[in-house]
């Protein structure tokens, strides 16, 4: 049985441990890394509100700081983000250059997840330009790099679906898009909507207009929630095509009019 002295001693030790814990401080980042993180955060905020020019400038400043202190994860993150922002601004060559810098850098050793992201972006870029074989090649590399802690499975599957659609292989497109939808349903609404759109397009090509319409409708709801004008327009056009396929020209016309009013900004 614990006597009073022992109890108080125990309490005193507990208090001292508590005070020691209070005094513990989190490991601090140096001022330059703080600065880079600040630039990166303001860039992300600008990107989220669609202010791509500001985002570009901020990411460039973050990259300068990260390069100065050789913050390798920071450099990879900044270059990936710069590629993405340039792509959004329609500067495909600049986006490509940033991705190449990252993928062909022999001096620094980047984590695989960054390389996987870069390879996926590169594949999508090539697909946008119509280079299906190049897109397939980089997608395979991305798939090989996408191992532990890789969250790109849904994106890679959707890119496979997009490649299949380019080759008019609706069976494969539906397979990959369905897989992407299953893996991203709750985790990544952006990719879930992409998968629904690809499925809708595949169904449309197969003449399954009712299913295509339902999928486009669901994709539209998600895209509206995410606030993505270009995709909303695409969903409306898919719905219009589906109505047209069902013989409802009036509805098709209505949806095309709705789509024509959407201006991306």
């Amino acid at each position, binding site marked *: 049985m614990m006597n009073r002295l022992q109890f108080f001693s125990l309490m005193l030790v507990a208090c001292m441990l508590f005070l020691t814990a209070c005094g513990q401080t989190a490991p601090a*980042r140096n001022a330059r890394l703080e600065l880079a*993180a600040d630039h990166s955060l303001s860039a*992300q905020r600008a990107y989220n509100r669609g202010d791509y020019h500001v985002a570009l400038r901020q990411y460039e400043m973050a990259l300068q700081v990260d390069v100065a202190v050789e913050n390798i994860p920071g450099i990879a993150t900044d270059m990936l983000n710069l590629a993405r922002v340039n792509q959004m601004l329609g500067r495909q060559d600049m986006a490509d250059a940033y991705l190449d810098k990252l993928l062909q850098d022999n001096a620094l050793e980047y984590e695989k997840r960054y390389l996987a992201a870069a390879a996926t972006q590169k594949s999508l870029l090539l*697909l946008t330009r*119509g280079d299906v074989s190049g897109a397939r090649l980089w997608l395979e590399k991305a798939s090989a790099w996408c191992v532990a802690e890789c969250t790109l499975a849904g994106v890679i599957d959707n890119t496979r679906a997009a490649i299949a659609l380019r080759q008019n292989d609706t069976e494969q497109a539906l397979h990959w898009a369905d897989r992407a939808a299953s893996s991203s349903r709750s985790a990544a609404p952006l990719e879930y909507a992409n998968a629904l759109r690809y499925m809708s397009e595949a169904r449309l090509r197969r003449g399954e207009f009712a299913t295509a319409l339902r999928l486009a409708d669901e994709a539209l709801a998600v895209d509206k929630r995410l606030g993505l004008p270009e995709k909303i327009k695409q969903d409306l056009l898919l719905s219009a095509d589906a109505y047209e396929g069902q013989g409802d020209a009036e509805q098709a016309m209505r949806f095309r009019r709705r789509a024509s009013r959407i201006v991306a900004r």
Partner: protein
Amino acid sequence: MKLNNYNQRLLNIEQRTKRFMLGALGAMLFALLLIAIKQGYLVRSTAIYFFAPNAQGLNQGMAVKFIGFKVGSVKEVSMEPNATVRVKVALDDDYVHLIGQDAKARLIKEALVGESVVEIIPGSQQVQQVTQNSVLQFERGQDASSIAESVAAQLQPILSDIRQITLSINNPNGDIQQTLKNLNQVTGDLRETVKQFTRLGASGNQKLESVHGKLDKALDSVNANLEVMDKAIPLLVGKAEVTLDNVQTATSDIKRMTADSAVELPAFIHNSNVLVQDSQDMLEGAKQSWPFSSWFRKPEAEVLPVDAYVPPGKP
């Protein structure tokens, strides 16, 4: 044998625990001693008093300063039966010899915003120094609100003068409007006269006498108007002089206030900056310490989500 060993070990543990507890107690007493020294409990002081009409701005514990140095603190603020306020001040004995019996206690603010302090205004050197229970005279220094009231009081007559002048100008029966009307009339008369004079010139000297008469009349009218103006102008000049005097007084007051503030404002701004910086540092420190460190996660740079959307219609 084993039991003896066990008892011995227990005794050892007990001894060690006692020593540990005594050590902790000693550390606590040392800390209390340090606090007492810091709080000035161990400093010898002389109690003096002053009486104020009200306790506004006077608080227990507020600093008492002498030529900018803290020489004591307010120990007690209490109300007397005659509804005055008695303030007890403890002065450090080291500084008592510097303060004469005829010194004054003044309640001032060291900056535009912030705590008030009691400032001891030194008396003449010849007079005997304060002793225990001495009573000093008390006065209140000007604070921001009283300065603002003073400025408002100075500006009020200026504004009323300006309003009066504006009313006078706008009043159709006022001096200025009447003068303008008369001037218009004179101008009209003169124009008519000139016309008639021209006609007369054309028709010869027949109506010269009549013109002369009208000219006389016009000149009379001009004279009358000039008389009105003579009366009105001194009045206006007088009002303008009063107004200008008021403006000059207000300007000099504002200049004096600006000069007074010129010393305090930079210090105030500097102090505010330091305060904000300190608060930021403290907040940063707190954010890095347990348990707050787990509440405030450091923002990390993130990779933007890769979007597998490929725009249609492109090759």
